[in-house]
């Protein structure tokens, strides 16, 4: 059987961009909430999975409605 060319996602991913952050700096999100790190000029944007606790869980097929 030919080997699949699809790259496997490692079960235990180590993200160097996340590991390089100063996790204990005041105001940082929890490490496991960071989905990706985006460069923004001299800043970094930490895209997280955090949202307001009262917001309904977003459906993957639905666009988010206006914030209230």
């Amino acid at each position, binding site marked *: 059987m030919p080997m699949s060319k699809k790259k496997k996602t490692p*079960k*235990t991913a180590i993200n160097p961009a996340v590991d390089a952050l100063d*996790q*204990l700096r005041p105001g940082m999100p*929890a490490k*496991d*909430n960071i989905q990706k790190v985006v460069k923004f000029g001299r800043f970094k944007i930490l895209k997280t999975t955090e949202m307001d606790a009262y917001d309904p869980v977003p459906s993957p097929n639905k666009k988010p409605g206006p914030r209230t």
Partner: protein
Amino acid sequence: MPDPRKATTTRLPLTGATATKTLTPMRPGMPAIDSIQKTLTLAPKAGGPTYHIMRTTETDAYEQTPAALDLSKLLRTKGAPPTAALAKAAKKQPSTGDNYAGTDRKAAKLSKAQGPTKVFSDLKDLIASLPPESTMIKHKPKIPTTATSGRVKEEQQNVTVSAFLYASSREGDNDFHLIVGRNQNSAPEMYMTMEVSGLPPNNNPKFDFTDLNAARSAFKKFFGAKLPGAGYDFYDPPIPVNIEGSLFFDMTHATGARPGPQSLKSRMPVIWEVHPLTSIKLG
């Protein structure tokens, strides 16, 4: 102008109820004020110090017990969640009895390390002494998460640490998760998970029933009827604690959500744990 870090309140925004004690929401190690469902008083020893328990709706993000799911569902609502339903969900126990009910790395979790005991007077030094997460994730031999996964070389280390208990919860596998931190005046803030384990069978020589039972009994005796449930209980002031136990790397949570209450998780730099506890002195 008054220092906002010293601001106080007695109103619990989640329910609109009044706390039994004036709270200082900006004190290091406090839960988010809107996660406090109710407050209780704890006086473990006659004539000794009195602590205040802040019973919260915070759970480990990955918990799937009906109790944890109920809490999370009730919060996803605009306005005030129904008070009675919230109280009922907070009361629900994620597990019963004292026996360990999990499987992941059971062999390691229920046995003591064979190495010497290192003494730490500051949690910061204990955390600094731990091998990096990346080394443990790529460990050779690989650390499996199966029930038979025993201690690897780096986990053959016992520790004693003097610190403070900030929060605890009861998990579905019958472990109590203790969130242990430094003195509240020490910077930087940091916390680590330490676990009072569910008990192994007492007739199996592979496990350390006697020590694990002693630690669990001491924890249960201190809190009496005020043991935590599925939601994290936070303590005010943080409770002085002296802990002995074995180092353990939580391979199960090396990827995905990690243990800890939302309010403190950003200051929990490692998924190393002290697990199991073999001795605990509280207060």
